[in-house]
């Protein structure tokens, strides 16, 4: 089925107006020796065949598992109104709001998104938007370099490994050195950023740091002493970049309260489906002092000629289409529709609802910890956590594979993402949110006990399968 709507008669009338026989005349300027070989594509498929083909492929993804996977993307209940609003043509197919007089809806929604994320982060300026948490974190690092005139970034190894990889890619191009700050190996602070090592890294006066990047909660689900980390980098004249998970901000201190200059993060938990890793939503916010360094679109409130309240893209001199090689970033197309999803989600839940989601998730994670402890599985790091934590499971990758046969997606074996770190070799990062059911937790604990040959065999749970999350 094609989507080219012209009728044969319309095409003929246009060709006649142009005084040509065939559309080939319009491609005559392509040098003959450079013309394309034929497209090696199949004939057009009817829509139902396309749907059937994609459904067959989709069926090869297992979606029947009880999932305890977080590690940067999280299952939450999304009120159906979020998708209903997104699917309206006024949002879905609308062009970039370069013409504010006909784009007030989009522009106001972006302003509201900025306001909601500013409330959550306790910061003043929110860019709308970035590709994902990793790209937003990399942009935050480059911002810190521009603002400080320095070219070295410190990043805690307790920041998501894929964010650090992305940071290294961006930094290589920008000529920025990335130094990783290790995590504490043992004791009460195990799994959090090593502050002694941080002090050593800060002391390198030959190449002072532009900033420090730390995550709250960190990749292992643990809470970091963010105020202390921020104070340390500030004392060294650098900026503090907090990588945050937005749902947690309903119960944790916001970055603005503990002195972060920039917050970056993944907005997916705010009403955006998992969708195999994307499209997601990169969050980037900063203090007023950094407003001219922040990349990406900003919408401001102003008035029209008649004095009516109105919204417009502003401070455009930072952007690539105006500033070209001196722009703050090359970002153009962003994740606007998903910024809308986050705004609708936050507006629908309100502050009480979001706190319920956060508290509910933390409570389910605590229930998961209790259930795993009962089968003899302990946490690897002792500190406080939000909604995910690491447990010690010998041969975690193999155990993880065997649990799939029991219908359990047992989180993430850390050896798969950090193969060279002996501290993490037995680590299994597991997560629970408000959509995790008692039955799922029971199944996980039972199956893990089975696989590990745990001491006290328990009755196999009767109810299995994934809950209502997405």
């Amino acid at each position, binding site marked *: 089925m094609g989507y080219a709507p012209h009728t044969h008669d319309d095409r003929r009338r*246009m060709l006649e107006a142009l005084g040509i026989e065939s559309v080939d005349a319009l491609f005559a300027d392509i040098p003959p020796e450079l013309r394309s070989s034929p497209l090696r594509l199949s004939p057009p498929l009817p829509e139902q065949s*396309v749907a059937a083909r994609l459904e067959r492929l989709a069926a090869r993804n297992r979606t029947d598992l009880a999932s305890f996977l977080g590690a940067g993307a999280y299952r939450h209940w999304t009120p159906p109104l979020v998708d209903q609003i997104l699917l309206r043509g006024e949002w879905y197919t609308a062009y970039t709001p370069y013409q504010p007089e006909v784009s007030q809806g989009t522009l106001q929604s972006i302003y509201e998104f900025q306001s909601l994320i500013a409330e959550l982060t306790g910061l003043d300026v929110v860019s709308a938007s970035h*590709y994902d948490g990793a790209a937003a974190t990399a942009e935050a690092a480059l911002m810190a370099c521009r603002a400080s005139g320095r070219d070295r970034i410190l990043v805690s190894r307790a920041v998501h490994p894929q964010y650090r990889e992305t940071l290294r890619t961006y930094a290589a191009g920008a000529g920025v050195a990335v130094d990783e700050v290790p995590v504490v190996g043992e004791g009460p602070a195990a799994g959090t950023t090593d502050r002694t090592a941080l002090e050593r890294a800060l002391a390198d006066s030959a190449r002072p740091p532009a900033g420090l990047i730390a995550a709250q909660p960190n990749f292992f689900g643990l809470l970091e002493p963010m105020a202390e980390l921020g104070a340390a980098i500030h004392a060294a004249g650098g900026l503090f970049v907090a990588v945050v998970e937005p749902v947690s901000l309903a119960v944790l201190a916001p970055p603005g309260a503990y002195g972060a200059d920039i917050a970056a993060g993944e907005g997916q938990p705010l009403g955006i489906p998992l969708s195999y890793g994307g499209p997601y939503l990169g969050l980037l916010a900063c203090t007023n002092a950094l407003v001219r360094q922040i990349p990406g679109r900003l919408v401001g409130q102003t008035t029209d000629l008649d004095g009516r309240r109105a919204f417009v893209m502003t401070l455009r001199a930072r952007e690539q289409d105006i500033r070209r090689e001196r722009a703050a970033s090359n970002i153009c197309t962003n994740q606007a529709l998903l910024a809308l999803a986050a705004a609708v989600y936050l507006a629908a839940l309100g502050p009480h609802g979001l706190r319920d989601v956060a508290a509910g998730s933390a409570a389910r994670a605590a229930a998961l910890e209790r259930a795993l402890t009962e089968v003899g599985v302990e946490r690897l790091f002792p500190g406080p956590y939000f909604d995910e934590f690491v447990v010690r499971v010998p041969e975690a990758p193999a155990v993880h594979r065997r649990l799939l046969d029991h219908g359990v997606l047992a989180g993430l074996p850390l050896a798969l993402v950090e193969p060279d770190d002996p501290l993490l070799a037995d680590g299994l990062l597991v997560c629970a949110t408000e959509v995790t059911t008692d039955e799922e937790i029971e199944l996980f604990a039972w199956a893990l006990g089975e696989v590990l040959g745990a001491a006290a065999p328990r009755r196999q749970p009767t109810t299995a399968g994934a809950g209502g999350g997405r």
Partner: protein
Amino acid sequence: MAAVTLQPAAGAQGELTGILMIRAYHRSRGDLERTEVLVPDSAHGTNPATTSMAGFRTVNVPSAPDGGVDLDAFRAVLGPRTAAVMITNPSTLGLFEPRIGELIELVHAAGGLAYMDGANLNAIMGRFKPGEAGFDAMHFNVHKTFSTPHGGGGPGAGPVGVGPKLVPFLPTPRVLREPDGTFRLERPGERPSSIGRLRSFVGNTGVLVRAYAYILAHGRDLALVSEDAVLAANYLKHRLAVDGSYDIPFERPCKHEFVAQAKTLHRETGIRTLDVAKRLIDYGFHPPTIYFPLTVEEAMLIEPTETESLETLDAFADALVAIAREARETPDLVRGAPHTAPVRRLDEAAAARKPNLRWQPLTGRETPCPD
């Protein structure tokens, strides 16, 4: 192309991916002197911005009077410092680059690589394959060519195709096919030559599945999409050329878009392109991109695409002609436009002078969760 990465989240990130791969290619050969990327002056702003992000210096190349790259000027800046040339083809003027073969040959002879900004791929499907022509890398935008809705500014995706030289440098993780026919993702560190990751996870998967469905539905008829887009643009350009109210700077056939100018109109009536664009709103049309490319005075970049009917194309041309008449007879009507939109023209200077970027609680301190 020899391979494609689907990881980049948007066209601009695709550009960064491509230029970082080119950087890695030169460095892998110990060729550290190549610090410049040549960019025609008609390019999208993302091209020079990308060049800077990847650590290169942008060298702007002027256009020739026919809208293509000026070959003499190109030769003059080409040399041992040239890492790559970035060419948008068709260009942002809607023109197929007439000397594309020479440009690719010259940059290759100088030891640089050829990058194609494929933002305008929707004009040339089935007519021109950048890989066959010798380009070493190109990105394309799924929202421009493969039906992804704009969503007010995203999400899109910016896949990048590469020739054989750049395959080792593709972002990680790639999807690998095992001998038994199953698929898996590359493991961390499995391919050290990779430039690394551009983002978390694997890409804007949901967007890519839709683009794949669009490609399956069209199959080899994708060529028809380009033909209709090009036919519509040429028809509209012809209608305006016949009327004569607007300047049409390039007479030769355009591809999917063309540039018109309110240059003469401005000189004769004082009405500018901005006024024309705002008045189009009253006629029920979303204005085209204006004042771009920057190289064309009072520019309107008009792109009808394949999806607008002949009736709509005619109505749009009629509206532009009517606005030109209004510019002469009732210029204040045009200057005050739009009159039918929810708001009139905005005070953009005030917005930038004293930015109001978020709602502020009136009390100064809110307690949203009183317990």
